[in-house]
Each structure stands twice: as C-alpha cells, then as structure tokens.
C-alpha cells in the first residue's frame, strides 16, 4: 500500500484500476480562476471522485484515499470517505492508527488528522488510552506546545482514562522547559479534573510549593504566576491571606530584577485588601532609580509608578491600574 512518490506508477497504467473512468474536476461554466495542479495529484483526485461518486467501499478505494491524503492531508472529503470505507470493511483500526501516526509526523498541525485519530481511538475505546497517551507524548517530544496534541490528550484522558501518571508527565515536561505554558495549563487541567487527586483544595498546599519554587527559579516566567493565582480560584480570601503568596512576591522584589509579575501580583493583593508590612514598602522603595521622585505613600500608586517605567510598552495599562486603585489604607 505504501506509495513512493518518486516511483509512482500512474493509475491509468495500473491493471486493478482499468475498470474505472476517472472523473475530472468540474470547474463550472466559465473557470476564470484555474488552479494548475500537479499531474499526479490531478489523476489521483480524478480517480477519487469516480470511486466517491460510485460510493465504492473497497480495499482499493481505501488505498486510494491513502494516496490522496498523502497529496493533501487537509481534504475533509477524502478523510470523510475513508472513515466510511473503514466502517464498511470493518478494517483493523490498529493499522489505521499506524497510518495516522505516519502522516501526523510531517503534518502535526493538521486539524483533519487529529480529528480522524480521535474517531479511530473512540472506536477502539478504553483499550486505546495508553496508546493515545504514548502517541501524543511522541508528538509533544517534537513540539512541546503543539495545540492539537494537547487537545487530543485532554480528550483521551476524559473519554478513555489514563489519568494516573498525568501529573508526573506534566512534571517531566516542565522540568524540560519550565516556560512551557501548555504544560502548565495541562497541570491545571489535571489538578482540577483528575478523579484521583482531590481537586484544587486537596492539592493546593503541594501545588503552591511547587509553583513558588518555579517562580523563584525564573521570576520573569508568566505561567507559574498565573497558575499560582488559579490555585485560589473562587477563594480570594485564602489567596490574600496565604503568607506563601505574599512572601514569594517579597522575595522576588528583593532580588531587584525580573520583578514585573511580582509587582503585579502584589498590586492585585493590595486591591483585594492585603495589608503590607514595612518590609514591602522598603522593597518597593529599593526598586526606584536614583532620579525618581520620593516613594508615594500610597503603596499601590508607588507600584504602578515603577511598573509604568520598567514595563513602558504597557504604560497605559499600569496608568489605568493606578486610576482604579481603591482608597489608600
């Protein structure tokens, strides 16, 4: 079934296709815009149109869809017909997974491939869970942020199971690249949705420690800061009162570099009623450049002032934050 493009035998010279009359594309009455397709592609699609119109669900039609997909894996109709043939022939779906994997390696951002893969895995049921997690792992080893692979993985977990090692998988990917926002998102997905972990409240302590460590290693990393906030979803009071949250802000501020997200979180904390100690005031005072004005007595204003300067591209945002500050405590 494998076709090597270099040695491709034209279909018109293949005996098994001699009974089929190819059906050329009908470009309408007055084709002003003609696409000049490659001849091999045109021929394959002409034969495809013929078997599609005849609704021929045969092994040769199945192999024809394979050739057509290799030419253009984005054609919805070819995939659609292939599924109908697979169903009619009651074909071995494990073989189908191998085929999809082969196509996916060079087209890992193609929507149709992933959709087809999901259809096949859904047919195979829970037995396919481990295989599908392995498959996405392979794709993610080539591109750890592939949106389709993550999406497929989330579907597999929810539809077929396999949650047991998922937190560990996230940990491994984050160890490889702590800036990988997709892996942080997956971590949140697991913590909030895994039937085995006890949800946000059960996981909060250990997750906060993990996240604080990640922040201390790279305080310019946007993802763990957002993750930290997400761990207190619907529980703002715990977030404001948890000393682990305010202290990570303070620690980053005292390092005096890459502190934009720390200042931003501190600003959010203040807006939600956090009462800062003198240490916070001193740390923010330490961020001023020598020629700047004296520290504003309103800590929120002082923070916005610093951010306006160090994050000048978003100066308007920080100015707006300043204008929205609650009355000083």
């Amino acid at each position, binding site marked *: 079934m494998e076709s090597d493009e270099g040695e491709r035998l034209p279909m018109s010279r293949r005996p098994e296709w001699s009974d089929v009359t190819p059906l050329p*594309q*009908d*470009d*309408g*009455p*007055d*084709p*002003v*815009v*003609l*696409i*000049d*397709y*490659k001849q091999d*592609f045109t021929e394959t*699609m002409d034969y495809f*149109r013929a078997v599609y119109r005849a609704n021929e669900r045969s092994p040769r039609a199945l192999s024809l869809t394979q050739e057509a997909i290799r*030419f*253009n894996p*984005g*054609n*919805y*109709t070819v995939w*659609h017909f292939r*599924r109908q043939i697979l169903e009619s022939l009651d074909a071995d779906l494990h073989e189908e997974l191998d085929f999809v994997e082969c196509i996916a390696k060079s087209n890992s951002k193609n*929507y149709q491939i992933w*959709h087809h893969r*999901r*259809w096949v895995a859904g047919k195979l049921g829970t037995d396919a869970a481990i295989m599908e997690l392995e498959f996405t792992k392979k794709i993610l080893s080539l591109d750890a*942020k592939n*949106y389709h692979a*993550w*999406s497929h993985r*989330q*579907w597999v977990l929810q539809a077929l199971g396999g949650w047991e090692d998922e937190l560990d998988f996230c940990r491994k990917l984050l160890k490889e690249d702590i*800036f*990988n*926002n*997709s892996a942080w*998102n*997956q971590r*949140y*997905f697991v913590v*909030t*949705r895994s039937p085995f972990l006890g949800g946000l409240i059960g996981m909060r302590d250990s997750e906060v420690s993990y996240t604080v460590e990640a922040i201390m290693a790279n305080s310019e990393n*946007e*993802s763990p800061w*957002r*993750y930290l*906030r*997400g761990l207190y*979803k619907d529980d703002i009071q715990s977030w404001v009162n948890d000393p682990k949250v305010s202290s990570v802000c303070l620690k980053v501020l005292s390092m005096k570099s890459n502190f934009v997200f720390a200042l931003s979180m501190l600003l959010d904390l203040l807006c939600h009623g956090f009462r800062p100690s003198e240490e916070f005031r001193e740390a923010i005072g330490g961020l001023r450049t020598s020629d700047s004005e004296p520290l504003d007595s309103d800590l929120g204003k002082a923070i916005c002032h610093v951010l306006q300067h160090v994050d000048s*591209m*978003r100066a*308007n*945002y920080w100015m*707006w934050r300043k204008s929205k500050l609650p009355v000083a405590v």
Partner: protein
Amino acid sequence: MPLLFYHIRPEAIPKTRYLMGELAADKHVKYIISIEKKKDNFESVVMEHLRMNGAYWGLTTLDLLGKLDAMMEVLFVGGFAGNIGHDPHILYTLSAVQVLALFDKLDVLDIDKVSNYISGLQNEDGSFSGDIWGEVDTRFSYIAVCCLSILHRLDKVDVDNAVNYIVSCKNLDGGFGCTPGGESHAGQIFCCVGALAITGALHHVDKDLLGWWLCERQVKSGGLNGRPEKLPDVCYSWWVLSSLIMIDRVHWISKEKLVKYILGCQDLENGGISDRPDDAVDIFHTYFGVAGLSLLEYPGLKAIDPAYALPDDVVKRIFFAHRHCRSDLSLARRRLLLKLAVVFCN
C-alpha cells in the same frame, strides 16, 4: 456544484517605490492579484481545500486597500465547500458568506438552506461541530454565530446555550481555549470574544484580566505572540488586536511599535506580508497584516469590524439594509455605540 467566480480586470497597477516604515499598498494589491489570478504557484495542492478561504483573505484585503471595486466583479456564486468536489464544512461556509457580503450578493443565497445547515451542527451542550463528523471547537461556535448573524438568522439556534458553552471554555488567565480546559490561545480568544460580542454577551468576559493577558502578548520587537513564550507573528495582529478592541482595551498596548513591526514584515519589492521579518510572504499573513493596520487606524485603509472581520461599511450595509430584523438592528446599534466609546477612550 456551483462556486464563486470572480473576474480580475486587467488594469495596470502603478509602480511605486516604497521606503521602510511605509505601507506598500500598491505592491500588496499587485501581489494579491497575481496569486488570485494564477493559482499555480499558490501552494496549489496543499492549499487546494482552502480556495474559498483564500478568496476571502485576498478579496477582503483588496477592499481594505480600497481596490475591490476597481479590480473585481463577481460572475457567479453559490456552494460552500472549500473547493469543487469537497464536502461542505462550516469553515468554508463562513468564507463564502463573507465574500458574498463583500460584493453585496447575499441575496443569491438560499438563506434557509444555509442557516439550517449551520443550526444542524449545534450540539446539546451548545457547542458546534465543524461538519457532520462532529469535530467540536470554539472556532466553530464563532463561525456559526457570525454566519447566522450576517444572514439575520441567529434565532435558528439556541444562543444562550451557545454562549454557555463558550463560557465553559474560559480559563484562569481570562482567556479561552478550543474546548473546556484547553489552553488559552489568541486565535481561540478571538473566536470566543467575537461570538460573545455578536450575541451581546460580552459581560461574560473578565475584560481586565483578559485585557492584561492580551497586552502581555506584545514582545520587545513590538509584535504580538499568541501564547506565552511563543514567537511573534503578524497573524496575531488580528487575533489579539481585534479581541482587545472588542473589550475596549486596545490602548493598553503600544500601537506605534506594532505598526512598525507589521510594516517590517512587508516584501517591499514584490508585495505581500510575512509572519516575521524576512520570511516568505503569503496571502494569509498579507490579510492579517493589512487588517491589523486597519484596526490600528493606519492612514488610507478602510476600517474593519473587529467581530465580523469585514469592512465596516459592509457590516453597516448588512444590518441597516434589513430593518425588518429588530434583534440584529439593535445589535448593530450597540456596536456603533461601542465604537464611539472606543473613540472617546483613546
């Protein structure tokens, strides 16, 4: 199956020399016409299924550049596959409807047939599938809502339920993913915010949180990325900017730096815009670059509607020419008020 055919008038295009930091408008017109005309070098095989989307990208860009009327006339319309011999898919349906709207030819459609096709794709949880095979994605929610609104048939679907599904895809950072729990992505955010804007449900968006996430997408070069720690790409000038405009937060980014970034991605010799400086140009990025500049109010470009992704005058024509449809009319009024508010903010 009939499809859209348009004729390109063989007019001479003036030759102009452009400097860095200036929009090479005529070159882009020339580039678009050259690829719409002879598709043989238009990655013809790979892009074959996107012929209808390609028409939308190219023609909308021409309209924004003020050249649509001069260059094109529609000869024949109908049909909604990506190309002849392909099955219908909601992706191509929207492009077809948008192209017809551009040419003020929506009346050639069998509107009931199209809207029945779309409403038949809504699932029980409010989501939409892309075709009869059931792939679900918030992209399809946007497409369905946008199409039906343009056709004045939003009443054909359960709008509240459609909104609920989109809201279920909201994340801790205020953004949206393709399905519940999916990572926030600027493209998906555009789809979700756009659908919520069209259905008058923007109150579900945490505008300040999402606005901050979106403006964090601007990187040092001035360009925008689609997710944290990803490279900037001209296409996000559309996805991010339009979302920021819909939630009234576009002044939070540096517009000057973004304009400079987009202009730096032009091919000043042969026209067209690429994803990043010095990469190969394509029609997709040419559209997003010009549409982004239009959102940034770059001089000489027509204004584009951030939710419908069509020129403002086209959107006005759609909603004010059909006074019998009250819900859509009030929506158009709301959108106008929103726009005035944006003007005052800036």
